């Protein structure tokens, strides 16, 4: 076994051959949203640092964060935060051994998409 042929063996088909599925797409978006949240996190920390420094520094950060660019980043990040949270909740459910049937996993994917959009709308309109 120790001298087994490595590197020249048949590989199972990967992403490129599969039709997009609810399970795979909802999963990759958990990764994308989680990592993309760094952008708005750094923006918010800069905004807080500016607030702690001076009125002039705060004016710049406030201008950026309330500009159309800031609005787009913040609303997308709000959705990403809700979506990633629901995705994390799904992982916690899966980790207990529940919800792994295909039907349930796909239904939870739809709940993440619809739930995150509803929560984003509710949050935006509550402010």
């Amino acid at each position, binding site marked *: 076994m120790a*001298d087994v042929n490595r590197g020249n063996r048949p590989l199972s088909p990967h992403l490129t051959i599969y039709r997009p599925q609810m399970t795979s797409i909802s999963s990759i978006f958990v990764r994308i949203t989680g*990592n993309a949240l760094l952008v708005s*996190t750094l923006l918010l*920390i800069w905004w*807080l640092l500016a*607030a702690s420094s001076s009125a002039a520094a705060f004016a710049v950060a*406030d201008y950026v*964060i309330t500009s159309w660019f800031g609005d787009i980043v913040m609303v997308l990040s709000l959705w990403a935060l809700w979506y990633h*949270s629901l995705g994390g909740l799904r992982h916690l459910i899966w980790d207990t051994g529940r919800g792994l049937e295909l039907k349930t996993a796909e239904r939870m994917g739809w709940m993440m998409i619809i739930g995150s959009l509803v929560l984003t709308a509710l949050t935006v309109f509550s*402010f």
Partner: protein
Amino acid sequence: MVFLTDRKRATGMGAAKTGTAHFWGMTVSSVALLILVPLFIFTVGPMLGENHATVTAYFSHPFPAIVALLTFIVGLLHFKNGVTVLIEDYLQGLSRKIWIIVMTCVSYAAIATAVFAIARIAL
């Protein structure tokens, strides 16, 4: 003649590397963040677009300051561990190591900056 045993060749090569510590760390921080994230959204969110005096007065209260601090600290540590898996999945060799080091440093720098900023406002 091959001298490596199967066990020796497999040790440290799996996706888990050092075992379950990483997985358990993500589990603990994700449960904490399920509580912190909604609190963060509804305490920090309304401050966006407010004027300087309002923002500094707001974060000098204990509750908003502590919620913001906890969310940035726990969230960025969760990010550090998550982005490490992302890098491990898509990069190999030297670039993998460099990116993990860079993103780890960015995460800790962001934590330190957030703690400094909120402490300076609050105190």
